[in-house]
Structure formats: structure tokens, C-alpha cells
């Protein structure tokens, strides 16, 4: 050992979270691997998983986790599988957002997760919760409902999400089944600031934007937008939430929506997580359709060089832009539909497109 790894790690130690740190950690993992330092590789990848999950580099997290899990299984005397249970739930939640992973693999993954939780004597609460999320976001309403009750009736333990996240997840489910009143009530402890964590109320504000519009809570919606945007605009892990802010602004102030689009399109363009890309592209499609409806044919859209689709694909008119987003979005929707064996994502698209004609 030549101390190179130690030096790099102490440098990393000083870095704030985010992409630069992730890239440095990957460099450190490569050095650890080439020095055959399993222990260091294992620990460094724990941080990669963390950075990846919380700062929007989900694929890097999945890769690092696969490696960690493999080492755990190969070297049970060196590493303890219970260290991976926390990460496991995050990883499963990331994986089903890739439509290329077929349903049977996802089922196997859930079975493996359940098995590992059972073997550690952990409550299955996180398992039910994430599986419920997977099911309803794939359009399997009945099975999701069944798991929802199992989820909320399972005990909490050391592997459960924090209270704030747990409540937020329940709010999400209630919004999915369109029980808006109950959802708002459920969200109260979060909205009042009593429950919070690193991701809450950030996510909650975004989730409640459109339901607030639909139920006529216009003032609340504006507050959620203003507070929520400030919390998320620096971290691309909140891409899905950003899509919701984009839709909200499309309805209430489309000029501001264009601003948000210009600022954050790069996140969507770069992400490998297809589900998030789909959400943002769909929101963009809705926004451009609304712009066209308002007669704004001549638009100047400024995008960063790396993601300038307008230049790259010569999208000269607003119709070209709409057509591009329509194609990209429906391609992704088709992939999800194909995997899920239903047409759930078509419904999602139709519902969002209705926002074009939403009257305040």
C-alpha cells in the first residue's frame, strides 16, 4: 500500500455530498479493488450506495450494492448481512423503476428481500411498504391494497423508515386511491413541521401540489410550491418531485414553468432511472402542449450544452418539441406497460395531459 487510498479517503472526508464526492468514491473503490482490499472496498461502497440513493445517482448505488451483497454472501465471516438490510429496501425501490428489469426478476427480488428480513428477525413492514408502492405504481390496484393493510399493520422496528417517511408513504398511497381528504389529514403532522427528516417535507409538498389544485386549495398549493422548491432545487435526487412542481407551474404560471424546465431538464436528461425520466418528460410534454395552446409558437428555450436536445435533434418549432417529448415519453410508457402486462402508463399520460385544459 502506498497511502494513495488513505490520502484520497481523507480528501473525500472533507467533501460535501453530491456528484463530485460520488466520483471520488468510485475512484477510491477502484483503487481498493486493485489493491485487493475487500474491507475498504466494502466500506467505500457503503458510502457510494448512500450518495447514490440520496443524491440522484441510483444506478451507481445499485451497482455498489450488488457488489456489497455478493461479498457478504461470499465472506459471511467478514461481513454481516444485517448491515445491508437498510440499503436493501432502498435498492429494491430503485430497481423496479427500470422497465428493462422483467416482472419475474422483481418478484424474485422481493422474495429475496423478504427472506433476508425474515432471517434477521426483522419486521416485514419495509417489505410490504415498498412492494405496495411497486404494485400501485405499476397499476396493480387490488394487490397493492392487500399489501397496504399488511404494511400499516406490521410493527415498526430498527429497519423501519423514520416516522416522517412512513407517514409520507401512507399519504402517497391515499393520494393514489384518490382519498384526498384523508391524505391531507394524514399529512398534517408533516405540514405542521412536527415530523421531518432529510427528505420530508420535501417530497410531501410536491405530492400534494396537484391534489391541492384539484380540491381547490389554491393558497396551500402555492405555499407548498414555494417552500418545496427551495428544499429540492439543489439535489437531483428530487427529480420526481421537480416534475410535480413543473406540472403545478404549468397550470398556474406557465412562464415560470419554462424557467424550471430550463434549469432542471439536465437532471432528467442525464438520469438512468427511466421512471424519473418518464415523469419529467411527461411533465415537459404537458408544458409545451399548454404553451402551444396559449399560442406561444416562438419560444426561446435555453438548455445547457450537454443536454441541448433542441440543437441536437433540430427541434425548430414547438410542434417538433412536443412531438419529441411525446415519442420519448410514450416509448418509455410502452416499456413499462410491456413489462407490467397492462396499459397503466397510458392512463398516467392521459391524466396528466388533462392538465393542459385545467381551469383555475
Amino acid at each position, binding site marked *: 500500500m502506498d497511502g494513495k487510498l488513505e490520502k484520497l479517503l481523507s*480528501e473525500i*472526508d*472533507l*467533501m*460535501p*455530498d*453530491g456528484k*463530485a*464526492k460520488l*466520483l*471520488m468514491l*468510485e*475512484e477510491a473503490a*477502484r*483503487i481498493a*479493488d*486493485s489493491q485487493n482490499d475487500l474491507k475498504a472496498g466494502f466500506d467505500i461502497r457503503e458510502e457510494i450506495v448512500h450518495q447514490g440513493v440520496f443524491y440522484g445517482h441510483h*444506478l*451507481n448505488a*445499485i*451497482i*455498489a450494492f*450488488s*457488489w456489497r*451483497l*455478493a*461479498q457478504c*454472501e461470499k465472506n459471511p465471516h467478514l461481513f454481516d448481512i444485517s448491515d445491508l438490510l437498510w440499503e436493501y429496501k432502498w435498492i429494491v425501490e430503485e*430497481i423496479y423503476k*427500470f422497465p*428493462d*428489469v*422483467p416482472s419475474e*426478476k422483481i418478484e*424474485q*427480488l422481493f422474495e*429475496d428481500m423478504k427472506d433476508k428480513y425474515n432471517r434477521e428477525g426483522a419486521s416485514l413492514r419495509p417489505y410490504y411498504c415498498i412492494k405496495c408502492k411497486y404494485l400501485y405504481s405499476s397499476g396493480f390496484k387490488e394487490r397493492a391494497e392487500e399489501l397496504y393493510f399488511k404494511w400499516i399493520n406490521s410493527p415498526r422496528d430498527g429497519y423501519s423508515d423514520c416516522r416522517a417517511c412512513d407517514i409520507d408513504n401512507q399519504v402517497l398511497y391515499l393520494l393514489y386511491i384518490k382519498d384526498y381528504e384523508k391524505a391531507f389529514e394524514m399529512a398534517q403532522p408533516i405540514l405542521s413541521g412536527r415530523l421531518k427528516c432529510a427528505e420530508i417535507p420535501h417530497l410531501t409538498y410536491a405530492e400534494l401540489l396537484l391534489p391541492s389544485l384539484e380540491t381547490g386549495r389554491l393558497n396551500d398549493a402555492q405555499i407548498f410550491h414555494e417552500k418545496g422548491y427551495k428544499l429540492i432545487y439543489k439535489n437531483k435526487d428530487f427529480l420526481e418531485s421537480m416534475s410535480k412542481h413543473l406540472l403545478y407551474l404549468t397550470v398556474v404560471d406557465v412562464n415560470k414553468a419554462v424557467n424550471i424546465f430550463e434549469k432542471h431538464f439536465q437532471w432528467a436528461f442525464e438520469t*438512468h432511472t427511466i421512471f424519473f425520466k418518464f415523469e419529467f418528460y411527461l411533465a415537459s410534454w404537458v408544458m409545451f402542449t399548454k404553451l402551444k395552446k396559449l399560442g406561444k409558437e416562438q419560444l426561446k428555450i435555453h438548455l445547457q*450544452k*450537454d443536454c441541448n436536445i433542441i440543437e441536437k435533434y433540430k427541434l425548430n418549432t414547438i410542434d417538433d418539441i412536443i412531438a419529441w417529448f411525446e415519442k420519448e415519453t410514450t416509448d418509455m410508457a410502452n416499456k413499462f406497460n410491456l413489462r407490467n402486462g397492462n396499459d397503466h402508463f397510458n392512463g398516467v399520460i392521459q391524466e396528466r395531459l388533462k392538465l393542459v385544459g385545467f381551469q383555475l
Partner: protein
Amino acid sequence: MVNNNEFDLRFKVNLQGIIELLSNHLYSSPKVYIRELLQNAVDAVTARRKNDSGFYGSISIELFEPSEKNPGTLVVEDNGIGLTEEEVHQFLAVIGQSSKREEFFQRRNDFIGQFGIGLLSCFIVCDEIIVITKSEKSPYAVEWVGKYDGTYRVRKLDNDVSVGTKIYLRCRPGSEEYFQAPTLKDLFIHYGCFLPYPIYFSDGKSKILINNEKPFDFSRDGILKGDREAILEYGKKVFDEDFIDYIPLFSKTGDVSGIAYIISYKMNPSSKRRHRVYLKNMFLSDSVENLLPDWAFFLKCVVNCNDLEPTASREQLCDDKKLSQVQAELGDCIRSYLVEKARFDIFRLREIIKIHTLAIKALSLEFDELYKLFIDWLPFETSLGILTFGEIKKRTDIIQYTPSIDEFRQIQKISAAKSICILNCGYIYDTEIIEKLPEIFHDIRIERISPTDMSASFEELDFEEREKAFEFIKTAEVVLQPFNCSVQIKKFEPTDIPALFMIDEEANLIRNIENTKEVSNFLFSSILGQISDNISTSSKAQLCFNYNNPLITRLIGTDSKELVCMSVEIIYIQSLLMGHYPLNPREMKLLNSSLLNLIDYKL
């Protein structure tokens, strides 16, 4: 038993349980009872001065140290407003009822205390509290005796007592350490040295005024006119370390004033902030975290605030709107200090930048005004060594940079050989800082460089040379095809490099997936495979041979296809190792077999 009456029943609260809960969970240390005692006394005097502004208030503390015969007693006396019998019942025996107390003290803002726990925190160190008090409004004095078991008695006193309050605490066996004169004296000084009324401490042998000489003058004038050395000395005394310089802090919101000290070593941006805060001149905490903006992690400060809310434990400040406003105002103070240094004291600024590079970079990103001032002094790692941006600007018209250290390392050698200045923006904030340049300075052009861009700028072979190298390249392509690596041949400096392995972020991700797939279990390996199949494979790793390298020239000249195969394999592996790319099992196998084959061939 069933309650058949229609009356509501009251909860019974176990006082011992509550005290234990508070002392173990709310307060960070049992010492806080000192603060509560001082606070009651100061509030009482302040209340009396409301009605009579010329009144001379004072507080005296007397300690009888524990001995074999005597358990030790602490007596705290003030000549403040005192309590009537009714008030004694209200204030001393009710927990958590702050509103009544507020009414009593009329305007809450003038007082330190707010929560109804106050005096009862003394039960942390004693079993019995005796209070003798006489109110201005009452013709007689009252004695209140509270016990740890949750009972209390009150009786009228006949003898003549002057207006004020006297509190007796008898040391609980086991708490003797909190009744030792040196400890107590230090604690009273610690909490009370800035308090406005004279506080005397006596231990039977000597009597001192604990706030005789304030260690520091927190007023605006005191800070602005203060002697530099004395202010730095004070910081050293408080934090036990030397500082580079200090920044005066004032905020109208919250009525805050104090000093921020610039730390003399590199700080971790995510480290805990530890600021010392006094609230209305009473010590609040040594570890307030939320006083300064996030980016100010290179500072430690001491401040007094007169108009901010403490949390229930009275050891942090409430994170409310007002505090955010205070953060912003204090942030302005720090910024104007830095601006001033940039204009008039560049030497000091460079010293600060040298140590707190990260903080200064973070700040520059946050504020355009500072960005313009600092940018020329900010250091970057480049292919020509560490240079400040001012120096970089002189060397190159277009600012070229790589966003990761991995990419930087790949092209560092070649760009150095050509004396091209490339910035390594793999470190935190660097990419953001460079990408902001054109936004701030319209005449500066920037360019993100990837290793593949770099190879595109290499000199191409002419027709004849290409003809010569044709067979070699064809063989190399076949050899490296299974490793997802494409092949090129060009001319570049330095000539001692036979080949360059280049991989950009996307291709690196794919390589990472491939390598991980090989070690992962079946389920994850197939999941990774499915995900990676759908990532566009347009970006591949690339091995670019150097036509100018003598070894390559000879290999091109050789007739032995076998030798070319083995050499390409070894060059490939070697360039992976040079770039710190761990070998996957297939590459490891390749390394072994090609080395053996080479030996075999030579024999």
C-alpha cells in the same frame, strides 16, 4: 374502582419521574440548575426595576460546603420583586405553565426565563428546596418548602423580612461535587459573568463579585473600537485555540452582537458548528449550531442576543423565521468583511483562501459579487500543477477542464507534455465554479474536455502510415473486442507512452457494471445485465496506440501475428493498471495467460 361521579379526574404526575426525565433527556448536564437559579434572581430584579428604574438590584450567593456534620447548603438571595402567597402556589408548584408567569412579568421580552420548569430543576441535585419570599405587594413573607417526592407546604412568616427572595438548597447525598466552592464559583462565573446586576459569591472564607469585570464588551461600540489583540485573546480564551482574524457580527433582528473568529485550520464542511451564545447576557450554550449560514463553516463565534427564542432545553436557539433572518444578517457581516479584505488586504484574503479554500469556493458560488472578487485567487489543480485562476487565465484563452479526477488523470500526462493547461474539476465545487464563468464574464470561453476529445486532437496518420499499421490495428481490434474496447492509432506526445486507455463517465459506468456482474450473485448479475443492455453503448472504452512510440513502430513492423496478439493484450492490461482500473476476472486471466505465452514464445 369505578368512578360514578360526573367529575373529570386529574392525571397524577410523579414529580421524581418528571425530574429524572428532564435531567436525563432535556438538559445536557445537571449544572443547568445554576442557570435556573440565576435566571430567577435576575428576572425578579428586572421586574422590580420596571416599577422603580433607580432601584439598585443585587444578588448574593452563599455556600456552606458539605462537611461530615453538614450535608452542604447553597443559599441564593435577591432583592427582586418577590412573590405573594398566591404567586408562590402558581409559580413554584406548577410545571409547564408558562403563560401565567408571562402575565406576571408583563413583557416577556425583558426576561430570560419562560418555561415553568425553572426552580424545580434544582431537584436534580437536592431533595428539598426552601424558598422564603416577600412580595412588594404583600404585607407578609411566605415560606415554601418543596420536596423531591412531589409534596410541598406553604406557611406565612411572622418575622419581618425585606422584599426579595431567598432560596435554600440542601445537597443530596451523592451530589457533593455540585456543592464544592471552586466548582460552583466557576459555574456561576460561566453562566453569569455578563449579567447586569452585581452577583456576589461567598464560601464563608471569601466573598467575590463574580461579574466584577466583564470579560468582553458586547456592545456595538465595544466591538468596533475594541483592541484587535484583546479581541483575539478573548477568542483564544474561550475556544482554547489561535485564530487568524475576527469578524464583528451585528444583526438588528434578534438584537445580536458578537465576534466570529476565523479558524486557523481546514474545516470539514459537514462538521458540527460550535458557537458560544449568550441570551440576554446569560450563558446559553457552547454548542449552538444554527446561528450562522451553512457556508460559514470556517468560523467560530461568541455572540450575545437579546431577542431570540431558546428551545425548551434552553441550550439551543429555536429554528424559526427570525433565526433565518439573523443568519442572513450575520452572513452579510461576514461577506462585507471578505469584500473589504479583497479590496484592501489581499494578503489576509489569500491566507484565508489558502486554508479555507472549500468555504471560499462555496461562498463564491452562492454570491456573484464574491465570485467576481475571489475568482482570480482561487486555486485549481491543472495539468501544469496547482495554479490560481488568475494564473490560468494568463496561459490559455479557452478554459479547458475535466469534470472528474478519473478523466483528468487519463489526459494529464499528454496535456502536460504538450504544455496545455487542463483543469481538474473533479474536486468539490470546481465544476460548478468553472461552468459559472461565462455567466459572470461574457468574454471567457470554457470547454469541457473528455479523454476522447483529447484523442480527437491527436495527429492523424498519413495514408502511407495507415497502410502500414492496417494489419496491426485489425489484430488489436479482434483481441480487444471481447473486452468492449475499441482501438485507434494516432501520433502523440510523450512518445514513451505506447498506448493510452481512455474511458469517459458513461463507458466507465458500463465497465463498472460489467465488473460487478462478474462478482454478483445470479439475481443481481442478471438484473445488472438487463439494465446495462439498455444504456446506449455508443460510448466505449478506447485504447489509442501511439504511432510515435518505438515499441509500437516495431510491433507494426513485425510479421508475427502471435507476437502482436500477446503484446496488445499486455499493453491493454498495463494501461488499465496504469490508470488504476481494477482488472475483472477475465482480464486477470488474460494477464496470466499472455505473460506465460510471452515467456513461452521467447524460449
